[in-house]
């Protein structure tokens, strides 16, 4: 356990070594932004839209009372999406998609000696392979989560429009109500996202890069990457919530 933590810290140390050539690293960074973020937009938009839709139905069903105004549904959906569903649940989904992809990519490179080839050439393989993944995710994940929030609200709005469970204008009013705290909530959500992005990419990279064994170990590394990323996301979520919201 301590040995693994030490290796993880050493890995992070090597990421911040001076690149051999900034141009090559920058190209790699752009590639990772597309791979990790842009290619996740489809699944994120589908998940977010359906989460928003389901939240509207559940909230509207749960608070059917003449004493509670309809716009409460919109407000509840906004709070739930901003504070928890978009940053945490979408990050957990990204841990599954991106985390397993990172671990299997690096694991395959390890098994096929591509990482050794980089080392023999004199390239800092950790800096070249893992650095751009972490930096890329720190940049693109907050954008993905903001996009997710938009699609979540849209999903809820579409349910209101098609099912008339509550009037659309009441839903929009709910979304826009008590907006003075929106900045605090968005800052909280995006801070969480940045921390989660770091955890997902660094933990998954660790399992892929330090893989031992053959192709069977690649699958195991991929599973471990998702399991440990998810556990650390949930743990960090609790700590950050305690620190930032109370």
């Amino acid at each position, binding site marked *: 356990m301590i040995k693994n933590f030490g290796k993880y810290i050493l890995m992070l140390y090597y990421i911040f070594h001076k690149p051999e050539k900034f141009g090559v690293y920058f190209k790699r960074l752009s590639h990772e932004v597309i791979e990790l973020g842009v290619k996740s937009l489809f699944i994120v938009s589908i998940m977010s839209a359906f989460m928003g839709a389901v939240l509207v139905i559940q909230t509207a069903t749960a608070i059917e009372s003449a004493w509670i105004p309809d716009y409460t549904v919109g407000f509840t959906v906004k709070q739930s999406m901003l504070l928890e569903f978009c940053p945490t649940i979408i990050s957990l989904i990204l841990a599954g998609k991106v985390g397993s992809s990172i671990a299997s990519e690096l694991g395959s490179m390890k098994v096929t000696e591509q990482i050794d*080839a980089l080392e023999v050439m004199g390239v800092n393989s950790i800096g070249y392979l893992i650095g751009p993944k972490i930096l890329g995710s720190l940049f693109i994940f907050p954008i993905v989560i903001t996009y997710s929030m938009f699609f979540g609200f849209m999903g809820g709005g579409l349910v209101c429009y098609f099912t008339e469970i509550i009037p659309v204008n009441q839903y929009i009013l709910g979304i826009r109500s008590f907006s003075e705290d929106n900045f605090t909530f968005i800052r909280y959500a995006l801070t969480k996202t940045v921390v989660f992005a770091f955890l997902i990419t660094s933990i998954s990279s660790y399992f892929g890069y330090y893989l031992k064994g053959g192709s069977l170990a690649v699958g195991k590394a991929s599973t471990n990457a998702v399991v440990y990323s998810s556990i650390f996301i949930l743990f960090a979520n609790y700590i950050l919530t305690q620190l930032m919201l109370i």
Partner: protein
Amino acid sequence: MITVKNISKSFNGTQVLKDISFGFEKGKTNLIIGKSGSGKSVLTKCIVGLFEPDEGEIFYDNRDFLALKSKEKKDLRKEMGMLFQGSALFDSLSVEENVAFPLRMFTNMLEDEILERVNFCLNRVNILNKNNLYPSELSGGMQKRVAIARAISLQPKYLFCDEPNSGLDPVTAIVIDELIKEITDEYKMTTIVITHDMNSVLEIGDNILFIDNGIKKWEGSKNEILNVKVQELHDFVYVSKFLQNIKPK
């Protein structure tokens, strides 16, 4: 020239290399031969710096590799080229990008110059009009040749080949052996080839080191290997019936 002195290496208490000393000569194809698990790859990985030996010294033309600082080691690595057993081409890059990779990473050449050098290296290994293909679209022999092109793109002084003809048919295996030999002669490189293929040994073995269970048992050339008296090497060389039949009396 690469010289190793008294190299020993253990993994989890198991000694894999025991006190190996040898001189790999410049302009020659130096072979490390031995059975599977004899320590050939570990020795080579110690020489290129992928493993750190427990004891011993490694000299690259009088430069003490193990005593070099990290920056100096990196500079020395630019003088090395390595062909891995499975080629180790980068899956996500095309043939052209693979060969251009060391040039883009370590030189300030312009794109036109890089492309010219890439085409020269690919022509040298007889890979024509395959620049935009990906490694998965190439045959095993072609992958090996592209890997050689990548290894020589920076005009290295030292070339390492880990079982270059494993998994190849006999014809392609000889083509790869001959290519390594030609390139070594042409660029006056110090080439180290790990192999357990007797065809390669007899074809290109200028200077041969035989390892058995991590111990150096014999050194010599392809001209001497058929008359050798060392029992372990004798068993290794004459394992096939064909070679037993042509064995000198």
